[in-house]
């Protein structure tokens, strides 16, 4: 089977400082990869390099496109990459405000990606928007409300709906549950897990919350100071951590 995404030797430096370096992994269709690590360990830099928001200094990000097969997205032309990022890719920001248009209604937010790929039938767009609001457990009567009238959890769910409406195959998530209270987190995780399984999505989730990766991720990478220090199956890494930093991370989780 061809991997959906192959990351080869990605490196990003900020001047003399290392953002992330020498990252290699393959992601297969339907697989969810978690990336954990402390603040400043290079998780978000790596995610942004893969999603095309940052240009890596070295390495390749090879994506298995629908038409042309595996293509290096770092060297592909910008229009192609932007097209990819609004069709086959999705990016869920930590703060919903970064990923939503706050002055546009919920329906318009969901419809934007559809219109960006050429949908020009108002009725169809609206039906899809209402359908997706239902899927992320937002009442259909809120379709014309602006995101600013939504709670934090609803905004995050709206952002997910807006991203998944075009049926992407790969979702990048940057701390999707950050800043939400625990009960809302639990609902969101439940929802995400359902959607990922149902749509057969591949996902890369950056987080520092080990509970999130335990629930969602099949595989796990642990990063420290820009390096991947440990990688493997999620349960294996969390139950039997080998690297000193991973051991510290696992033992730091607060027990209730």
């Amino acid at each position, binding site marked *: 089977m061809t991997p959906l995404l192959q990351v080869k030797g990605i490196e990003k430096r900020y001047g003399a400082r290392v953002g992330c370096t020498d990252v290699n992994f393959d992601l297969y269709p339907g697989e969810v990869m978690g990336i954990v690590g402390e603040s400043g360990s290079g998780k978000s830099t790596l995610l942004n390099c893969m999603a095309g928001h940052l240009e890596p200094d070295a390495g390749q990000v090879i994506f298995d496109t629908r038409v042309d097969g595996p293509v290096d997205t770092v060297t592909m032309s910008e229009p192609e990459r932007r097209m990819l990022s609004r069709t086959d890719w999705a990016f869920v920001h930590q703060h919903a405000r970064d990923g939503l248009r706050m002055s*546009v209604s919920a329906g318009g937010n969901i419809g934007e990606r559809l219109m*960006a790929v050429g949908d*020009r*039938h*108002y*009725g169809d767009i609206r039906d899809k928007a209402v359908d997706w609001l239902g899927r992320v457990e937002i009442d259909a009567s809120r379709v014309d409300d602006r995101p600013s009238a939504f709670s934090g959890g609803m905004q995050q769910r709206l952002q997910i709906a807006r991203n998944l409406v075009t049926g992407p195959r790969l979702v990048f998530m940057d701390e999707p549950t950050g800043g939400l209270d625990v009960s809302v987190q639990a609902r969101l995780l439940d929802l995400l897990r359902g959607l990922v399984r149902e749509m057969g999505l591949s996902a890369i989730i950056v987080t520092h919350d080990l509970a999130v990766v335990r629930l969602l991720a099949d595989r796990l990478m642990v990063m420290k100071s820009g390096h991947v220090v440990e990688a493997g199956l999620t349960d294996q890494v969390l139950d039997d951590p080998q690297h000193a930093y991973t051991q510290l991370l696992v033992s730091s989780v607060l027990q209730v």
Partner: protein
Amino acid sequence: MSEYNFAYLDEQTKRMIRRAILKGLAVPGYQVPFASREMPMPYGWGTGGVQVSAATLTPDDTFKVIDQGADDTTNAVSIRKFFENTAGVATTEETEKATVIQTRHRIPEAKLREDQIIVYQVPIPEPLRFLEPRETETRKMHSLEEYGLMHVKLYEDISQHGAISTAYAYPVKVSGRYVMDPSPIPKFDNPKLEMDAIQLFGAGREQRIYAVPPHTKVVSLDFEDYPFEATKADHPCDLCGAEDSYLDEVIMDDAGNRMFVCSDTDYCRSRREAGHVGRLAEENAA
């Protein structure tokens, strides 16, 4: 008159503006940056249009200025006087006789000819501005032809008002490529953007010039199930009885009386001279 260079601007500036105009004509709908000069009038009074007119005028031209259809409002009168003083060109109020027409927010009702140039005053040339405030991003969207966002605006219109409520500055796609703000003309005028005359757009404060060459395809954006409609007040003109012209509503008193008159004063006058009579014309004459 002799103290000014012809049409106020110096020759180098006019040359620079003409280059921008030519580039604009070569790439229809593309916003060409230009080094806008300070003009002896405030921003918002048509400094862009005036510069384009100044670069376009020749001593043989006949000049007409319209402000929201009218020839006799402050903006139109002052710009007309400005060019009478600085260029000494002939001026007219008749659309037929003009060779260069500077306009604010209207296209004349009379069909324009190939030997005419119409210059629009544009306040904000960027159609995506209120959706995407970053200029770097809107430029990228234009260059990559990413115009989905424009439809988000129309979607919002329909979801809030049940119809596309954008009534002026209605976005158009020019020659199948660039999405363009046709300046704040009513959408009634949008179908006229496919015309025989050269159309030039000048935005002085924003320092942009763009153009639509004659016979260029100009399509108003819409949805399949909510097609574009060129709307006007459903009424004939009360002075000349015209059914096909764009109307202004005039409140007559505080008892709810109102009249509708052609916004194009020259069109209305020429129809009345030709003997057409509207509902309130007799009273007015008396």
